[in-house]
């Protein structure tokens, strides 16, 4: 399946991926409204890790054998197709953090803005290219099928 891969050697650490991820998951899909008017504002589902001048962006890897799906006690974490993204049903989630306990990438966040739920990358499900990739100014994120 197509996944997002990071190239740490060209990441500038600008965090535009985080910003555009928020916009892509907002109601209005408008950067000004998303940041100025919307409540709750979505959390970014991609996270830039930084150490000195060195950085990369990380989001859900959409594992072939996702530990988060195995550990999810409500069935909120799921896949619609064997080669589709790992998706999360906010309505079913109770915020037990079992997924956080098992994700080896630390790619799932706690969203406690309204009711407690997990928050993770959905590869901008339905879009041709995820927002983080589309808006990366230095091609430090690529969306490709590496046959995995």
């Amino acid at each position, binding site marked *: 399946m197509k996944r997002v891969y990071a190239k740490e050697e060209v990441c500038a650490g600008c965090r535009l991926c985080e910003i555009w991820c928020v916009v892509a998951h907002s109601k209005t899909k408008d950067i000004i409204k998303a940041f100025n008017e919307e409540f709750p504002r979505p959390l970014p589902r991609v996270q830039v*890790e930084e150490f000195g001048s060195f950085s990369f962006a990380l989001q859900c890897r959409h594992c072939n054998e996702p530990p988060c799906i195995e550990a999810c006690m*409500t069935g909120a974490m799921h896949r619609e197709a064997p080669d589709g993204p790992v998706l999360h049903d906010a309505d079913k989630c109770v915020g037990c953090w079992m997924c*956080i306990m098992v994700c080896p990438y630390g790619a799932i966040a706690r969203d406690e803005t309204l009711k407690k739920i997990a928050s993770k990358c959905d590869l901008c499900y339905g879009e041709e290219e995820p927002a983080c990739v589309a808006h990366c100014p230095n091609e430090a994120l690529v969306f490709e099928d590496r046959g995995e």
Partner: protein
Amino acid sequence: MKYVIIGNSAAAIGGVEGIRRVDPEGEIILISKEPYATYSRPLISYFLAGQVDARHMAYRPASFYRDTGVTALLGREAARVDTEASRVILADGEAVSYDRLLIATGGVPFVPPIEGADAGGVTTFTTWDDAKALKRLAPSLKKVVILGGGLIGVKAMEGLQAHGIDITVVELMDRILGLVLDKTASGILEKKLVQEGVTLRKGTTIRKIVPGGDGKVREVLLENGESLEADHLIIAIGVRPNLRVAADTPIACGRGILVDDAMRTNVPHVYAAGDVAEATELLSGEKRVIPILPNAYRQGKIAGMAMAGQESAYLGGLVMNSVEVGGIPAISAGLMNPPEEAGYEVKRFLDKKNNVYRKMVLKDDRLIGFILIGAVDRAGIYTGLIRERIDVGPFKRRLLESDFGVIDFPRDLRSYKLSTVYM
């Protein structure tokens, strides 16, 4: 091929999904004593608290059995297995034959022999029916005593707190959640509970249950001499594997049903998974019952795939738990309380004011256990380090940092993780 699964929780559902990955056609019959379509057992405390309604109890969508081609015999109890004739005998006498059998019967609550335990108002808390009964009773309850401050006791307590009931937890150990936390971590949560009005009695247990004139529990007497008034008592000291269907069969059992790394029992074509199974533990390599949901699902899936002819090895279960007490999240895994003797390296960070605590247990530069209280974000990175036995020597000084992440991994490991899908 005809598959029979006894059970209907995480391991059984993992079994169905494992079988269907390999064999889309074979007949699957699922037998469950409870009358419900598969539901999330850990949600019973949320249901009791009124945070989750009946519809949201479902562990899989309503169309699950249809979509996966499963014939679900709900409300039917499997009484025993006849391994000679390869069939399961139900309590109502019907026999169901199998080519491959998965025993996923889970656990049953352990009730110790306490004088007066047959009084009314003494219950356990592991099924949806338990939660429903307690929820119906809740408006009339004033004082509830919970025997056991482990995971089940704490969950029952949380469910009851929502009803404004006066709760006392009686725990034999010197702390609540003693098996999954250490003294410091438990202390943080206990302080919060006491602030919320829960009464804790530690280092003691119940000696006698005294019924009132109506035959229902009225007071409980503790080993420490104290007497507690109670109009309900929940026994929550743990579960043990439900071995009933394996009794009087050649299926080998220790504490649970013994299985190899493909979840096979010693009897051909018979598999076991979940809380009933005694499988390999990751750190020790020894057989152990680890009754937690992630292990149950994974074991079920591996069993299902193996039953359908595709073997994938179980790499071993790891004790791990995520629980929230009084709004403070806690996650722990592996060995959190290493023995005193040398050889273990323990790192700790404590911020009492903000209820944040981190503890890392290392041996020979491998992480073997951790506890996170308060700030539990990215806990799975630590779980991954344990599972994969990564040499953390080069970055162990960073383990306790609040911004510890994948960036702290050595370059080769990091590149590998970022450029491939390894799971």
